């Protein structure tokens, strides 16, 4: 099959909407890294930047949805074109959600920088955020390359993020038990860790959409679940 439609305007529409996804993805990756850095370096100004940048992400999502609606109305896309539109809409809403979590991390940074340091926590979160950002980058590359293999690999990497979260969960519990004055900071940090773990889940959702786009089928094998904090009492220290 050739890549070009007989109606070349249709090609331009599809290219534009996918370019907007990539732009949105770039902004979201940036937000994740900056939010994590601001947390670690207690950089309130950077945190403020992240909070303000979220608006652009939201606006892009809206724009993508409008473009998708217009393409559906005007072009009645079928087969792979239809899958592009459907996956683009879902990817946009997942990206928007990741952006919200990054913004939330930045918000908490502003609060946390007024409190005592929790040893090692922010560096661990930064590493976790870095891994999520890499997943996101790879899955968006897979989207552009129509590469289902890379998308599957990204789904599996979510397991690592879940493990990192489990470790942090335990650490925070320990800190809180050691000294109740740590509770406020640890609660905030725990939310950040949990939200970062959720970002990984959203990256996994995007990977599913990429697989659907390429193969026409939603992957059946349930993605690996390694966040055991909600089911396994032994995760928490006695």
């Amino acid at each position, binding site marked *: 099959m*050739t890549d*070009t*439609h007989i109606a070349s305007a249709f090609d331009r529409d599809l290219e534009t909407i996918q370019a907007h996804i990539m732009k949105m993805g770039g902004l979201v990756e940036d937000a994740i890294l900056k939010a994590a850095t601001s947390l670690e370096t207690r950089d309130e100004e950077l945190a403020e930047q992240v909070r303000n940048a979220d608006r652009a992400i939201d606006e892009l999502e809206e724009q993508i949805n409008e473009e998708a609606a217009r393409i559906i109305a005007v072009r009645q896309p079928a*087969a792979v074109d239809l*899958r592009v539109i459907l996956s683009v809409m879902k990817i946009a809403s997942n990206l928007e959600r990741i952006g919200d979590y990054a913004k939330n991390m930045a918000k908490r940074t502003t609060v946390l920088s007024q409190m005592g340091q929790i040893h090692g926590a922010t560096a661990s979160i930064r590493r976790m955020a870095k891994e999520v950002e890499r997943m996101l980058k790879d899955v968006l590359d897979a989207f552009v390359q129509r590469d289902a293999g890379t998308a599957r690999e990204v789904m599996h990497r979510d397991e690592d993020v879940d493990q990192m979260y489990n470790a942090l969960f335990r650490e925070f519990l320990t800190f809180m038990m050691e000294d109740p004055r740590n509770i406020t900071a640890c609660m905030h940090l725990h939310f950040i860790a949990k939200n970062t773990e959720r970002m990984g889940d959203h990256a996994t959702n995007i990977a599913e959409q990429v697989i659907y786009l390429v193969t026409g089928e939603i992957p059946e094998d349930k993605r690996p679940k390694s966040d055991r904090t909600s089911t396994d009492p032994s995760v928490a220290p006695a």
Partner: protein
Amino acid sequence: MYDTPNTERTVTRNETKFSARKVQVYYGDTHAIKDVDVDIEDKTVTAFIGPSGCGKSTFLRCLNRMNDTIDVCRVEGDILLDGQDIYDKKVDPVQLRAKVGMVFQKPNPFPKSIYDNIAYGPRIHGLAKNKAELDEIVEKSLRRGAIWNEVKDRLHAPGTGLSGGQQQRLCIARAVATEPEVLLMDEPCSALDPIATSQVEELIDELRTNYSVIIVTHSMQQAARVSQKTAFFHLGNLVEFGETGQIFTNPKDERTESYITGRIG
């Protein structure tokens, strides 16, 4: 609470109505249909799609031996209707066409009254014993053609005086008057406006409860809307045949994909 199934999309496996095996059609030296194998189900709308000259109309016309009327046309292979070879010497093509009705691209009512347009088939096939029975058949057919309410007060006006959409529904009513088992439709909506098209599509969906309907259409959206099964023809080959939903969201063959997405293939 019960789940409400999406009826239009529910594909149930029905009995095979038409079974074609290794069908070849030649127009003189031109090989128009190549090795087509397909099973058409009863009580199902099957759409034939494909670019111009791909053989979809030719194949459709094989199903009620309309190609017999073309001298240079030669049909090979087996086409079975309910297990019976329709090209068998014992089969009377006129009887076959009463069983396998056809509606054409352009509405072609007879230059007779609306009543006589419908009554013509039942009369020659002797389906009515008396006037009362014939009246009943005419009314029933016009109702099935979703045109009864519009013409009941002028049954003796000429059929050619109706609007294009009404004429087409009249032709559908005429086609169902002989109680066919299969209805072949060759681009039945291409000369109609969107409203008349919707009415005909609605009608096709109703006809599906009684008949096997096969429709040739250039409108992919129409194929997607009205059919449960879709067959894609290309250069005389049946490239892909499957559930309509699958063909339009996830076709297996690249040529199908190129065609339905409007790419140069």
